[in-house]
């Protein structure tokens, strides 16, 4: 297989573009895709202070690498979820990445901040670990961005993540979630920091290839809680479709953004107001994160009265 650009030996095939690239031209292709996402979706404004959510995995570190190379004003945020060796490895890789590049990194520890790791929080609140994790991360990204004066939060969600979520939301007709699924989640309330997903144009195979070719030492092991997750089933289904017809995932997600999303969002964003307990934006009187942690703390206290 030959590189589309230079006819040298190809390193990465991008079937959905009917192309293959040598290592240097693939790096150029990937960075151009991220740049295109940032510009066409108007993700960043001049003088933007970006908080990059970094897990230590291939996507978030690849994203941070591209933003650093572009010269964007970035600070990393890593959340220690307290998931045993997986969290220890993730934190170590993230800290090493930041140290090697002289990049700023904040580390938040869920157990130190709220007295519970993800496993305990999920079990005691009655949520699945993925649900407790997703809710906690979204909450902390916004809270820490707001507290730190950042104007945007960037996450490493890629084309595969977005296509799998779209499939799941369509299968269950989750209209609220469909209305919120977008590469840019605008600031619709003064307490809400804009969220952007600059990897929405690139597949996770491409972000893994980018990370490997850039020599990024990311966590390969999977979160133990994600075993059997429905997202993996949906990704498998989409990959089967992709294998039979290259470009299916891209057409599915981009088609949604072009055709269905504007119709679903025609009613405007939901009304937000500050949470009565923590001041973070919510559609309810008390936000979902405060309700989850309160429920978990109450159950734990009922079991062990000495806990705070």
């Amino acid at each position: 297989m030959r590189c589309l650009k230079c006819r040298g030996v190809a390193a990465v095939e991008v079937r959905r573009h009917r192309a293959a690239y040598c290592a240097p031209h693939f790096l150029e292709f990937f960075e151009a895709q991220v740049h295109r996402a940032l510009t066409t979706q108007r993700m960043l404004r001049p003088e933007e202070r970006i908080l990059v959510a970094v897990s230590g995995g291939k996507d978030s570190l690849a994203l941070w690498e591209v933003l650093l190379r572009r010269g964007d004003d970035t600070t990393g945020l890593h959340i220690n979820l307290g998931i045993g060796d997986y969290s220890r490895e993730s934190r170590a890789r993230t800290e090493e990445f930041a140290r090697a590049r002289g990049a700023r990194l904040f580390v938040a520890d869920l157990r130190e901040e709220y007295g519970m790791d993800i496993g305990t929080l999920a079990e005691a609140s009655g949520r699945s670990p993925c649900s407790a994790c997703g809710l906690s991360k979204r909450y902390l990204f916004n809270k820490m961005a707001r507290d730190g004066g950042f104007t945007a939060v960037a996450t490493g969600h890629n084309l595969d993540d977005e296509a799998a979520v779209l499939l799941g939301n369509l299968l269950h007709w989750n209209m609220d979630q469909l209305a919120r699924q977008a590469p840019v989640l605008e600031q619709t309330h003064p307490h809400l920091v804009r969220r952007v997903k600059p990897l929405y144009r690139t597949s996770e195979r491409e972000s893994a290839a980018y990370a490997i070719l850039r020599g990024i030492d990311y966590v390969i092991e999977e979160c133990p809680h994600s075993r059997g997750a429905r997202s993996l089933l949906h990704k498998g289904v989409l990959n089967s479709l992709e294998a039979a017809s290259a470009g299916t995932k891209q057409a599915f997600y981009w088609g949604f953004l072009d055709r269905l999303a504007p119709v679903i969002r025609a009613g405007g964003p939901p009304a937000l107001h500050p949470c009565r307990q923590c001041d973070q934006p919510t559609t309810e009187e008390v936000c979902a994160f405060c309700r989850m942690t309160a429920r978990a703390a109450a159950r734990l206290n009922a079991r062990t009265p000495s806990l705070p």
Partner: protein
Amino acid sequence: MKVRLHHPRRVLEIPGRQRVSRILADLGLDPEAFLVIRGDALLTSDSEVGDEDEIEIRPVISGGWADGAPCAA
């Protein structure tokens, strides 16, 4: 050839010279979900792997999700 795999971590010995596409197919692995690495280089599906080579087959699929959003970030 020596083939290193993940989830779980293990090493297989596969005899003879083979194409990457054939190795993945014989192992029942979806080419969309894996990258094949030899040394510092990524291999495309038509690359040949020699009997004396050592390769890594690395998964690229990650994450769980709930409440309409991926937990991975």
